[in-house]
């Protein structure tokens, strides 16, 4: 928990995170259950933008694995992960942020890819090219703000 404290201090000291910036993956602090309290971008998420990310293949592509009834206008949802209906009733904002950023911190060994991570991979490639990623080629799959947008969308999923 040392790191989260120091980030908090940094945030307080600089009067918050500047617009358009955000944490880098190494700065994210997960609690012992994998939750992340602080907004990664320092800005609120936009649920509408989140919906777009959830349904775009090169982005979150969440419906590739999860059923989301509220997204029925985008046909064919996957079955690999649990349905996300009512997910906001089951998890807090911090839980959801942690799961989207790196689900393995919450569910050990989860098949779900980490969307806010850029190191610690075996044979990483440059996006979907199959070519080896050199130093500087690896970016989180979603940006800090995109994670916040997805979390904002997930928080609308109440039953």
């Amino acid at each position: 928990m040392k790191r989260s404290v120091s980030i908090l201090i940094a945030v307080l000291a600089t009067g918050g995170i500047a617009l358009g910036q955000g944490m880098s993956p190494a700065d994210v602090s997960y609690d012992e259950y994998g939750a992340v309290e602080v907004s990664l971008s320092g800005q609120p998420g936009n649920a509408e933008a989140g919906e777009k990310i959830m349904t775009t293949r090169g982005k979150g592509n969440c419906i590739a694995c999860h059923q989301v009834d509220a997204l029925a206008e985008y046909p064919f949802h996957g079955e690999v992960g649990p349905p996300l209906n009512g997910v906001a009733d089951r998890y807090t904002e911090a839980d959801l942020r942690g799961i989207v950023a790196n689900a393995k911190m919450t569910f050990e060994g989860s098949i779900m890819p980490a969307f806010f991570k850029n190191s610690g991979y075996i044979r990483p490639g440059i996006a979907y090219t199959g070519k080896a990623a050199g130093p500087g080629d690896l970016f989180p799959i979603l940006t800090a703000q995109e994670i916040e947008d997805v979390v904002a969308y997930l928080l609308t999923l109440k039953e």
Partner: protein
Amino acid sequence: MIKRALTGAVCVATLVAGAFVGMNAVADEHANLIVNGEIEMVVRTEAPEHMENVDTIYSGWVYRATETQALQMDDFDNPGMLWVDQAAEYFETAQGPEGRSCQDCHESPEALAGVRAVYPKWDEERGVVQTLENQINECATERMGLEPLKYTGSEMVNMSALLASVSRGMPINVAIDGPARETWELGKELYYQRTGQLELSCANCHEDNYGNRIRSDMLSQGQINGFPVYRLKNAKLNAVHSRFKGCVRDTRAQTYAPGSAEFVALELYLASRGNGLSVEGPSVRN
């Protein structure tokens, strides 16, 4: 169908939701594959002993929609057979500096029936596990004096389709003991290794989630008994190492090269997971 143990809750939720997102019509899970009304394929059977997490093995044919399945049930409807015909012509064509053909040594493609079923295979002389493609190139370069065929190029894929076609219906039976063991172990390690930025192993999709859909694609067990495969997606024959490459790329990982020691090892391991299924190539998949 072929759903592995799911909790009741998840199962019900999936069914209810599935009703309105419009799910794929997948054929009857008990459907049997008989090609041309005569070649009976084993599309489901008991898993080989070495498999720890799977009881029953299924051909990828089982997971496809009825219309796709039908394309493989008659050689005329199977576009892959177009290239089997081409390879049969190549087989009897004299070429190279000495004007030799495949036929000079092997009387007919049918004389090679059964070969597909036992590859990849330990090659005593070379001291490595050889794929069928390696063996074809050994013939091309050493016996016919040709330049090696490109590993996943069309001439090679066509030839491998021809050799598969004459073994159709025979059970896959690759050896994994003796000197092939080390290669097999490497293949197994690669199968379970989570690579790329999506940190996915072969097993994550094809052992833990077969019978589940990603978007509308139903995940198969990743069996390779049907290769080369005519895919509706790209409307051509696909070599098994090309398919490996595509899958690895989709995990945002650096791929291995077709014909590399790693892909040969993975092929041996995957083939061994299908020991007992029928040789189906050229098969039809989506």
